[in-house]
């Protein structure tokens, strides 16, 4: 049985909760109940650093959602492909060991799953303890629908 692991990455700082909110919305949609128990699992991760690498193992498909800042409009959803982070090679600091660092290291070690979908939600304000913006909440729900449709199309067929 192929398994899917959905990982929402974030921190309790305003819009940086975008990844968590997407996982919340997916869980609320009940999408995992449409498939065999354990086939779809999800987790909310708080800045996992290199710990993300082990979470990419022993699964056929990983869907990863993180907050993104790229001069876009808050709430925009982007699907990132391998070319978006293939050239990433600058020096690393453990404090700044982010998702792309972990994915680059995982790729070098041959730890990437057979299928990896990476989504970014453009964010605005990142204030510790603050609530996320309305556009982030809406984007998380929208992305959850996109992911759920993708799961239905791929796994139900």
């Amino acid at each position: 049985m192929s398994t899917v692991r959905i990982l929402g990455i974030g921190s309790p700082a305003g819009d940086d909760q975008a990844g968590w909110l997407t996982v919340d919305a997916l869980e609320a949609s009940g999408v995992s109940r449409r498939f065999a128990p354990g086939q779809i699992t999800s987790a909310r991760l708080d800045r996992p650093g290199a710990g993300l690498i082990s979470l990419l193992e022993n699964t056929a498909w990983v869907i990863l959602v993180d907050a993104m800042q790229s001069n876009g409009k808050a709430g925009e959803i982007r699907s990132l492909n391998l070319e978006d982070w293939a050239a990433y090679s600058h020096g690393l600091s453990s404090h700044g060991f982010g998702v792309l660092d972990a994915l680059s290291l995982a790729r070098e070690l041959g730890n990437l799953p057979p299928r990896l979908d990476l989504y970014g939600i453009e964010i605005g304000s990142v204030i510790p303890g603050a609530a996320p913006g309305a556009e982030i909440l809406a984007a998380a729900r929208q992305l959850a629908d996109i992911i759920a449709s993708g799961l239905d199309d791929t796994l139900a067929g």
Partner: protein
Amino acid sequence: MSEQRRTVAIHVPVLTRVEGEGALDLRIEDGQLLELRLRIFEPPRFFEKFLEGHNYTEVPDLVARICGICPVAYQVTAVQALEKLFGVDPGPWARDMRRVFYCGEWIQSHSLHIHLLAAPDFFGCNNAIELARIEPEAVRRGLRIQALGNELMDLFGARSVHPVGLRVGGFHGAPALSQVNAIREKLRAALPEAEALIRWTAGIAVPQDNQLFTSVAMQHRERYAIEDGLIGASDGLSITPETYEAHFAEYQEPYSTALFSTYHQRPYLVGPLARLNLNHDRLPEQLRALLVDTGLSFPSRNMFHSLVARAVEIFHALHEALRLLESYRVQDSPHVPVTPRAGVAYGCTEAPRGLLWQRYEMDDAGRVVAARIVPPTSQNQLRIEEDLRLSLLQFGLDHPDDALQLHCEKVIRNYDPCISCATHFLRLNVERK
């Protein structure tokens, strides 16, 4: 005219592979090193001030926020200091489990530093991703060990980033036996990996750079000091945390937001190498035999042995956690009652990067009146500058700027400075005239 006569200014604007942000400025005139400054410029974080007015029950969660890598050190030091003031004994179970919790932090922090921050320097790599191309098995092993350290922190702290399990009087909860049994098997399986790590780090060619310095670390009569003991030094000092301020002082330099520390007006070293220099005879026999087998002997005057010192401490932390969890029993009440009292609380433990000292003045309602926290990196800051000066002169000042910069960064990374704790790290600026 030789190259040594030139005048050069090197500014490393951002040092990578360290915790936090800072810079290094070098000015070389006529072959003389005229200025060397380790500039820590991250803004002060005011944690000591934030603590004022907060109840003792809030202190463990507040101090955990000082560092994402070594929160346990800040928490354990604080709760032990406050328990001592309040006349509270959390009992042998809580004391042992705090040592296990602390071992988890040493394991994850040391493994992260060895594999992601320091080791790439010795293989001609810019980062861990390049290192993974030539030493994939070593990096995989390092990540496995680091993950196990995080698991130990999760076990007692509910999460490895800013854990929340510790409280004055003990722990908020006790892990289930099934969880402990599962992690015991992992610890047992990791010991051969840690032995291989020691052999791997011992086999890495490092510069021969012997320097005279004073090592300062906690010492315990019976065991390798982590969370308990007296403050010792290689000159024979042996004091309680209460008398720290009579021997150690802090001062401010205008170019750094971190305070500089001195021991009897001189720089000193804290951290894994200082600990191993003072406490290698407290390591278990198996580990001491392994060190003999690798040809390494301690005390060492070569700061580049910090890499292998961290590997040795990883092995010991795994061994110690396994020993303490062998007879694990779930506690009905993992904490004892606490009644606060007014007074001054002193605490000291060995954070992964070295001695961590704290002082809290408390009122009779259990609120913090004043706090003072002296992290390892500010204690090492003056020693890092001294090391850079000596090490650069031995290396030679006539190297190209990029070679000088790399050498400086390697020296600095030996200390695994945590600028975010200290208050924060590295940009190199070199001026040559």
